[in-house]
């Protein structure tokens, strides 16, 4: 990775994506200029992504030759915390319907309060239950948001 710089890597990814999108758009039909088809606009967008990313790769390569190096994106950061939060978000979205809003929210808040920057257990339990109850009251009862009910009816 240190052979390349950040912009070269990201531009290469975008170039590949742009070409894929442009090719995939063709199957929707490009139509003609006087009657553009369904695939016309996504094809243009894919081409534009490819073009700009190619320009980016060229510029980045010139900068690399001038001495620019890879800039660490994770070193010095507590990136595992971000990973924990992402995992919690995905789990919440997937477990919301099976567990119901109240329980899922309490577990979500409790997990984050304990896992990211550990709070005391009293803060975790009171925070989790209190937040779930307050959120239930605000969203379900006051705003009538129709949140999922778990097997326990809430």
């Amino acid at each position, binding site marked *: 990775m240190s052979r390349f710089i*950040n*912009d070269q890597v*990201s531009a290469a990814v*975008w170039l590949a994506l*742009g070409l894929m*999108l442009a090719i*995939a*758009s063709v199957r*929707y039909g490009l139509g003609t*200029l*006087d*009657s*553009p088809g*369904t*695939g*016309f*606009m*996504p094809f*243009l*967008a*894919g081409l*534009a*992504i490819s073009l*700009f*990313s190619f320009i*980016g790769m060229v*510029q980045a390569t010139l900068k690399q030759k001038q001495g620019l190096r890879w800039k660490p*994106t*994770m070193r010095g*950061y*507590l*990136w595992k*915390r*971000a990973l924990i*939060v*992402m995992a*919690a*978000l*995905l789990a*919440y*979205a997937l477990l*919301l*319907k099976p567990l119901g809003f109240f329980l899922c929210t309490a577990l*979500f*808040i409790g997990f*984050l*309060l304990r896992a*990211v*920057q550990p*709070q005391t257990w009293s*803060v975790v339990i009171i*925070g989790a239950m209190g*937040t779930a109850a307050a*959120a239930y009251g605000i*969203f379900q009862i006051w*705003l*009538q*948001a*129709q*949140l999922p009910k778990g097997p326990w009816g809430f």
Partner: protein
Amino acid sequence: MVMGFQVALQPANLFFCFLGVLIGTLVGVLPGLGPVAAISLLLPTTFHVTPVSAIIMLAGIYYGAMYGGSTTSILVNIPGEAASVVTCLDGYKMARQGRAGPALGIAACGSFIAGTIGIIGLMLIAPPLAKMALKFGPPEYFSLMVMGLTILTFLASGPMWKALLMAAFGLFLGCIGMDTLMGATRFTFDIVELSDGIGLVPVVMGLFGISEVLLNVEQSMERSIFETKIKNLLPTLRDWADSLGAIFRGTVIGFFLGVLPGGGAVISSFVSYAVEKKVSKYPEKFGTGVIQGVAGPESANNAATGGAFIPLLTLGIPANAVMAILLGALMIHGMQPGPMLVKEHPGLFWGAVTSMYLGNVMLLVLNLPLIGLWVKILKVPYPILFPLILLFCLVGSYSLNNSITEALIMVIFGLIGYLFKKFEYEAAPLVLALVLGPMMETALRRSLLLSAGDPMIFLTRPISAALMLISFFLLAFPFVPWLKKKHAGLSQGEAKK
């Protein structure tokens, strides 16, 4: 205006105006939750109220956030929202010098003056512009949107290729779902929820809300709130003398940049700071606690909020991501923003405009005495605050359509936004392109149908040609210094021979 006051002074609308500015100020104070996320989150709550009340409240959140953002910038050196980033530079330094009161005071007063002038501008310019917009056809709309995207990419920080790439990606995302002209679906992968396209709300909440939290948790979450007795909130005569020019310059800059599609409060504040530094007799002092460095940008970002309503209400084109959500809100309530809005729904138009006057007065009253309360809220530790922010985002995205897919889209875009920030890509062009994309596609295809496939239609119609020329100029402009250098280098080489 009389009709406007009659609408705005109704008790229900006064209440929603107050609620909007209060929530907006709170959102502006709290780092990590900007007006885009707040408006997205509260959008579903407006389904049960009248369209006028909904727009009054949502608009109040927008300009309220501009007021609130300055408090954290000055006291904590953390911008409450993006348009207050520049205020950190001199505002925090003023606080360290024991001048937090005048900094907060001039930010509030400057915002009030600029916000009021911006509303007057909106009132004067919108109706004649709406009349002119009736002459706009598909080529003009397409060219205007191209210009808007080009302006935003031109003013974005970082290399222009990145901003243009983001805009192109946003245009692609806007294509996902139903092709309204042909009735076919594109890139939905048989997911039913995607047939209506990727929702703007989950995308912006992910890109701006979730990603911001992910970046914040990676770092030390301790923040020190500068403990100082905040006194003498009212600026002195000397402060007024030093700031008045900056306030009026910021107002003009903010208003006109707010009007342009692609401009907005963030860019206005940066441009205003740059202008103040340029015109100052002591530019080297900027960054050390100069009051013009607070007065100008804070005025600009508030004037921009008034200006931003003009293209939305008269042309039906959102100038920025916040306006895009308001456009969505208006359409959900059965209103079609555009040249006919002033004529068909004068109560909504003038009621919303007049409520902004009242909202600005409420904000001035709220911000000065309640600074102590906002500082207390800031003291809530971030490890306790961020789970609440995430929860609001999750519930907000789910409750739009009672769909887990929307929540998952938000989470995915949260990860994408996080990666964008790591690799220094700006999300704003993507969001604007996502909103404008479907409208641009329709305008482009209709224009080509009109001209039997001749793309010169964009250059043969005068208004469209003018807009395209501006876009081309902005795209070519960054290359001009490079071209000049190259030419100078070649000339020197030939002279040596």
